[in-house]
């Protein structure tokens, strides 16, 4: 980067800006290609299901005439590439098609189920961040001690436990045996009538409209599933925090700060953590994305009406447009998170700046 020294400050800014723009354009182009690949991939998966898609729609007892009519309606008599072209051109106009099972536009369905997952994954990530970062910092500061070992074991267990099993055991213990927490679902039945969530984010809507009893009920319901997801996210975040912190703590400026006589707490939390923050953003973003995956099984266990459940049931029902739409949405969110962390990294990381 030494050759940039001959530029003026303004020139450098311009250069940095141009670099950022090219970077964004480049990543966007990659994103578009990836999206196209995603579409091709999901589409071909959906068309090779060993289940008769017409059967899934008309049922076992329909007459042959009914069957033939629906076969044509679904466009299955056309060659595969025509079907793909039709599908892709519809997608391009934002039309995800219609779910054969919910009888809604897939787009509307996704709009309905996504907030539930979003809420769950967000709270889960929050828990992961709030517990994971301090744990990781501690482990790094007390490297090699029992604290470090403990955080390592907690982290590795997080990687090793199947989430569906932990969820079932959690329900069994905290709901069935101890009665500390409510059962599956987002709200108690009593509230499902009195409360209508506008945005689909129950916690947010309840707090916004000041219905605190609903808010607390929702809290109680989300606690267990979010804590489970949070645990997994904590496992990842704490491990990564530890290694970033170790990296920072070995830097010269820390030694300088120590020599200057700054308090250890200040050095760690103010200086080292601040610098480790940049790569941490990426880590948090990635763990957020992986919670989407974790939510597939969690939602099943907790009867959580979110994207994961929608995806599973449409896959099982060979509801192709719905399954494709949901899979694409997951892919897009994933891609978006990756891109975002990429861009953030480029913007903030001193080495790439």
């Amino acid at each position: 980067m030494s050759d940039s020294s001959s530029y003026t400050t303004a020139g450098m800014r311009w250069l940095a800006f141009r670099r950022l723009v090219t970077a964004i354009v480049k990543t966007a182009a990659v994103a578009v290609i990836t999206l196209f690949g995603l579409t091709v991939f999901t589409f071909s998966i959906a068309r090779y299901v060993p289940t008769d898609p017409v059967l899934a729609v008309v049922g076992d007892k329909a007459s042959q005439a009914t069957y033939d009519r629906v076969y044509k309606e679904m466009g299955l008599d056309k060659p595969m590439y025509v079907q793909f072209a039709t599908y892709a051109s519809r997608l391009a106009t934002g039309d995800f098609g219609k779910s054969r099972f919910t009888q809604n536009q897939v787009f509307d369905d996704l709009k309905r189920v996504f907030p539930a997952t979003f809420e769950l994954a967000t709270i889960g990530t929050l828990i992961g961040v709030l517990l994971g970062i301090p744990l990781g910092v501690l482990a790094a500061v007390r490297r090699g001690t029992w604290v470090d070992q403990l955080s390592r074991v907690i982290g590795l267990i997080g990687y090793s436990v199947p989430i569906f099993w932990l969820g079932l055991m959690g329900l069994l213990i905290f709901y069935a045996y101890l009665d500390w927490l409510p059962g599956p679902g987002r709200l108690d039945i009593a509230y499902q009538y009195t409360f209508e969530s506008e945005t689909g984010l129950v916690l947010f809507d309840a707090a916004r409209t000041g219905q605190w009893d609903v808010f607390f009920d929702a809290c109680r319901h989300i606690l267990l599933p979010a804590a489970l997801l949070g645990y997994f996210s904590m496992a990842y975040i704490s491990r990564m925090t530890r290694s970033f912190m170790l990296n920072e703590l070995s830097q010269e400026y820390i030694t300088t700060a120590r020599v200057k006589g700054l308090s250890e707490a200040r050095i760690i939390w103010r200086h080292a953590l601040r610098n480790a923050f940049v790569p941490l953003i990426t880590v948090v973003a990635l763990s957020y994305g992986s919670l989407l995956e974790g939510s597939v099984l969690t939602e099943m266990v907790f009867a959580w009406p979110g994207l994961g459940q929608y995806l599973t049931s449409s896959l099982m029902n060979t509801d192709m447009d719905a399954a494709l739409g949901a899979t694409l949405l997951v892919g897009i969110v994933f891609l978006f998170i990756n891109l975002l962390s990429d861009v953030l990294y480029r913007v903030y990381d001193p080495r790439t700046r």
Partner: protein
Amino acid sequence: MKKFQLFASVAGLALAASLAPVLADTPADTLVIGQQIDDIITLDPAQVFEFSASEAIGNSYERIINYPPKDPTQLYGEVAESWTVSDDGKTITFKIRDGKKFASGNPLTAEDVVFSLQRAIILNQEPAFIINQFGISADNVKDTIKQTGPLEFTFTMDQSYAPTFVLNCLTSTVAAVVDKKVALEHEKDGDFGHEWLKTNYAGSGAYKITQWKANEVLILERNDNYAEPTPLKRVMYRHIKEISAQRMMLEKGDLDIARNLDATALDAISSNKDITIETGPKSAVYYLGLNQKNATLAKPEVREAMKYLIDYDAIEATLIKHRGKKLQYFLPQGMMGALDDAPYSLDVDKAKGLLEKAGLKDGFEVSMDTSNAPTTMNVAQAIQQTFDKGGVKLVIIPGDSKQTLTKYRARQHDIYIGRWGADYQDPQTNASTFAINVDNSDDATDKPLAWRNAWAVPDEMNKLTKASSLERDGAKRLEMYHQLQKGVNAEGPFIFLYQDIEAWASRAGVKGFIVGPSTESNNLKKVTK
């Protein structure tokens, strides 16, 4: 740091509140049912054929004819007041009850009834075949189903079918009466309001369907225009996929009724005095279909031997306890013509003898396509164990139900284990699939279960099945069905296992629901809690 403290205190508060005692219990005016409702794909009576939706239709629409849930042979007119059959037996004239009203407030007349039947035929969805079998199709429906007065219409068939057969068909959901005015208000491209009705309601039953969120909730509410208003304000079906979750929620009082508990859960919960279990036999049979394209399975001795290699009693006492009972003929108990003896039981020696006679002393290997529903899978495994004793090595090929069905319909299976539910409470519904197959070629137009198993049904049996739908003498008709069932057992490729039983586990205070022989006859109109 301040922000963090604020956040921490909010989070702490939320956590503390979360652990506070539960307010629990369901609202007093609402019945909360925990059920797997992910089978619902539509709420239009002209299309509904799925369990959960049929039940909703049964409680929210009125049908032309109906029967008391506990005795399907006692037919009565629900929308129809009376009917007369013409001398040639081909035309039935129905009179409609006066003064009936839809939930919308519109009066219910013969015009609505004719509209409902005609739209079902023209839309030609899955259940249309129930009316099609009387020679009524989209081409002739305007002439065969005709309004003849404000409260009168005629129903004309191509042959003089047994009246009970016809009336039984008119108890199915396809004969539910739709509010013509409301449906046409929402018509799009001449679809008789089909798109709209898939997610909406236009009926006259005890409840109205007010909300359906797929895989989440289905809500019925009291219809104040109904003659006898329901005691409950609303019924709420909550989609709870997991059996164990249904079980725990019922125990905790988060549900009033749990619908999908399996044998083991029911057995365990039956000792809980806060819970009662109500059962009702369904008109559905579980059976094995043996593909006759498989040379081994085509041998009569092999088919018979396999019937002696199933421990019906052990399965009944364990895996399907509360949820099924032994049944060895194609007609379920409760239906006219059902037989209640059990000619087969586990007899390994006898089976071995038969296999030896078939030249299969050392046994053989055969596969079974099995849907991965837990109960079916469990029963299949139990059969696998006893088959093994006779030297028959059974390979279970699991798949989800639609996948195994796809294979079955294409006749690519060896053995298929499945459930067959009656479409209406007349024996012809099962006879016309188990005991008839006029054309056994691969491209036949009619593909009954006998066809799916490549069984070329003997001519006399085909004729007998046809004749039994036309026989107007009740006693003779009964005798014909007895004969058909014995014939199928002797020559057919089916092994009948058990009859489905529906079991509802409810909180002890919940009273008044009736489990009928079909899902649409499950009755919630008098439920109190």
